[in-house]
């Protein structure tokens, strides 16, 4: 499997996750939620790039599911961070 430009972009995407991970590790609860939302968007891009890089069309559904679930998860976290957590 030759390394094409999609896999190189996916590797850059993985490096992009490092700042989000740092904020997730050391911020206040709301900062961590913001970093989680940012990481959700970056993850969806990485899944798109891997699906295209490996020519597996089935994994585009994975990116779509992640995009939708990170929306729902972010809303639930935001709701509970208001008062109860």
């Amino acid at each position, binding site marked *: 499997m030759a390394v094409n*430009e*999609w896999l190189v*972009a996916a590797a*850059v*995407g993985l*490096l*992009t*996750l*490092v*700042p*989000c991970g*740092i*904020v997730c590790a050391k*911020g*206040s*609860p*709301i*900062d961590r*939620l*913001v*970093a989680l*939302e*940012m990481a959700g*968007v*970056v993850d*969806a*891009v990485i899944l*798109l*790039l891997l*699906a*295209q890089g490996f020519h597996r*069309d089935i994994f*585009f*559904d994975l*990116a*779509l599911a992640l*995009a*939708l679930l*990170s*929306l729902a998860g*972010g*809303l639930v976290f*935001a*709701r509970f*961070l*208001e*008062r109860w957590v």
Partner: protein
Amino acid sequence: MRDIAVVVLLSLGMGIQALCAIGVLVMEDPFDRLHFTGPAGLGVLAVAAAILVEEGLSVAGVKSLLVAVVIIVSGPVLTHATARAARIRQFGHWVPMPAEKVGD
């Protein structure tokens, strides 16, 4: 020619994403951090456009466009919910304070 367009769109998309992630890391206040989650949707759009240029309107192209639309639509919703949660966590409610009344 098409490969050049794909590489340009990919580097644009990943560049926007990297700058947004660094912005989230550098900022201190959660409200400042939230400003940097906005442009990340443009990064997804650039990557989806690169896939469209490569694959055309096939299954892959349409699905990547759908992922980009979902992320762009859900961005402001998440940002508003998070900012509201941050404010309620800070002041106990989100109604503007008397000092912050604007335009009455």
